[in-house]
């Protein structure tokens, strides 16, 4: 992990951003101190993008700025590291339908992983629909393969029953290849979900396991157990497009909104609390956020963290 003072970081990112022709406006959070932030929120402040290309450019810039606010990916990705980028590729839906993570967000992260020195970047999820179809229609497989990432289809015979030592979930089949990576980057999309109220960072971890259809019977407790086992280090919550109703599979463009925002951070509960607000809910309404905070996985009061907000244009 490379140490960087906040001043250094600001100078560097300002230089980099100036070179890119961007103009982020940083708003320090309540407890801003020395060192990189715990959480960043990048919001689009430019003219509303209309074409697919403009939305793509916005997604790329938002991702770059959200990561830059944390001190860059070098903070998380060691030289020669093997990284697993875990988007939500749950459904056979297109990017416009916002049922999967935005492919440009995922691709930008993959590129930044390589730039930060990663040796191999693997991208994969355990979809609800059939993997070949979801990987294709989500746009993620094609986008990341072009950057040199390995697109991994999880093999149903290779999950290994793993003791995760939770309070409700004692053992569950986990995909070993994911655990063997040096870093797991959790990149969900913010969506509506009838039972969990919202599907955000914690719920995205369900793509690492098998036999998950009993999770719903105690969704919050199960997600807490799984999150505690996986020890999140970096989550990037995609709210470029969000699904406001009929989630998590969606399908109607009327249910999709475009907040054009991305949050990244180390506190998974804080990110989920922010995601709840983006979806128009109070964090207290999301059982997994409440349970996660109670279990000490993080804080729902994300403004109490070292927070930086960037207006990107």
């Amino acid at each position: 992990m490379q140490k960087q003072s906040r001043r250094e970081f600001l100078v560097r990112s300002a230089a980099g951003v100036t070179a890119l022709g961007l103009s982020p406006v940083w708003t320090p959070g309540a407890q801003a101190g020395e060192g990189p932030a715990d959480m960043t929120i990048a919001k689009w402040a430019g003219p509303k993008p209309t074409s697919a290309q403009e939305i793509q450019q916005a997604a790329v810039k938002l991702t770059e700025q959200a990561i830059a606010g944390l001190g860059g990916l070098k903070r998380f990705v060691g030289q020669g590291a093997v990284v697993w980028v875990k988007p939500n590729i749950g459904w056979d839906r297109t990017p416009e339908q916002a049922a999967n993570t935005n492919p440009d967000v995922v691709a930008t992260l993959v590129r930044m992983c390589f730039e930060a020195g990663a040796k191999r970047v693997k991208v994969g999820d355990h979809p609800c629909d059939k993997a070949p179809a979801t990987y294709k229609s989500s746009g993620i497989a094609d986008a990341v393969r072009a950057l040199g990432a390995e697109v991994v289809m999880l093999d149903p015979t290779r999950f290994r029953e793993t003791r995760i030592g939770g309070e409700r979930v004692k053992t569950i089949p986990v995909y070993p290849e994911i655990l063997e990576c040096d870093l797991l980057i959790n990149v969900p999309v913010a969506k509506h979900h009838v039972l969990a109220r919202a599907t955000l960072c914690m719920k995205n971890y369900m793509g690492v396991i098998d036999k998950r259809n009993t999770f719903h019977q105690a969704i919050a407790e199960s997600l807490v157990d799984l999150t505690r086992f996986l020890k999140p280090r970096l989550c990037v919550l995609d709210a470029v497009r969000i699904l406001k109703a009929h989630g998590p599979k969606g399908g109607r463009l009327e249910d999709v909104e475009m907040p054009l925002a991305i949050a990244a951070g180390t506190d998974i509960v804080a990110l989920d609390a922010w995601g709840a607000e983006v979806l128009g809910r109070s964090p207290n309404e999301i059982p997994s956020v409440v349970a996660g905070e109670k279990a000490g996985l993080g804080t729902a009061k994300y403004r109490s963290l070292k927070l930086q907000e960037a207006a990107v244009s």
Partner: protein
Amino acid sequence: MNARRGGLGAALRRVCQAVFLLVFVLLVLWTRPVPGQAPAGWLSAFFLADPLILLLTWLAAHSVPWAALWALGTVGFTLVLGRVFCGWVCPFGTVHAIAGRALAPRRRKPDPARDHWSPWHRVKYYVLAGLVAMAIFGGHWGTLLDPLVLLYRSTTAALLPAAQWAVEQGSKAVFDADLGAGRFRLHHLTDVPYQFLRDHVFVGPRQAFLGAWLILAVFALLVALNRIRPRFWCRYLCPLGALLGVLAWRPLLRRHTRQEDCNQCGLCGVDCRAGASGAPGQKWHPSECFGCLNCTSACPRGSLGFVWHWPFGPQTPVEPVGVSRRALLAAAAGGVAGLAFLRATPQARGTTFNPLLIRPPGARSELEFLARCTGCGMCIKMCPTGGLQPALFEAGLEGIWTPHLVPRIGYCDHMCNRCGQVCPTQAIEPLSIEEKHARRIGLAAFDTTRCLPYAYGINCIVCEEHCPVPEKAIYTVEVEFKGRDGQTHMVLQPRVDPQKCTGCGVCEHVCPYQDRPGVRVTSANESRHPDNQPIPVFSAEESPYP
């Protein structure tokens, strides 16, 4: 024509057979869903070139897809060359040729019972007569016995899944054993071919088909019959062979024996897999001959050859097909009677509907469907979830091996319409995705004695999460549940909106119950049957519901 040229011809024939068998297997393997790609029309090439399918479908359904007229090409070259389709092209024939050699080692001594024509050769014509008569009255059962269909179905439903099991279990065993040294693991090597097969050959993980044992048993039995006579199926039973035999009644290419050179040694018959001659070097039956050219290469004196025989020239006498009119009529009557028995069921009369008979979207109404479906298995091979399964008796004996959806095994993928696109006879209509979304194949219903929120007050609704209808055909209602201790708590109960449910079955598929799901789809409300509509469904504009 001398012996050397004949030997060359037989070698050429073997190459031709090998190529067509290979192409057939490749077409089976290529019949798999590739995301973002519509299935190619040529995947069903063999079926489209099959005149038996053309004839029986046209007789039973009075309509065939234009592409099926390719079979007229097969008719054309059979009229000219005889049954060379059986000897040179038919992949099932090639399987029998190989099996015949393996199971009945060649004894070089002439054996009239094996080498020569016998009245049993006529059986296949009676089979054909019965099947054609059945087809005239709307029964399409004959195509179940088409050799190309038999081979396709056996490969798809029995042979390939068995091979896939071996590959998957083998690679898993290597992975689990975790053998290796340092950072190297043995599975790094074995995963290369395994992942190629998984990503480019197999349709989905752990694919398997219900009733594969019966399909395999029929296949194994037909192959084993080669032990009794080489190419037993092709000689005595095959209805396609019979149809081509009728067409090869007076072909332009005929076998000619120079009688002055023939010493009746019988070696031509020893090598004849068809038993096409009635006697050594004589009494050639063009409708039985596969044109394989074995006899011309076997003749030590070079006295046999195939010569062109122009229609208006002097006639070389050939043996007739030799069926009796009385037996033909009896066979036809048997076919009609057989259809009557097949149809004398409540389901075939349309007075009952089997709740488990969920046909793929685009399937025509049952009798229309049965009048076209060959039971070939292309749709079940194409199904990305593996949910389309060959029926055993869900559709009656007449509908054996026709496709039906078993949601517990796999659901109907919302964004897939491939079954209708590959169906060679359009028993399943080719639908656009939008048209498909408007078709209902069934209706989901909750079993409130099992569904967790209803029966036990436990939250679940995995079904609602997976429901692919954008407006959700499954919705939830929050209700109070009184527990054992008298305490009440709130629980989300799922409900089905019959106006929106398409019957895709994903709810049943993902239900946490692994034995009998708490939500099940039945064929109720399927679009194809006006009489199977318990709940009227209205379009969005005309709906009387709020």
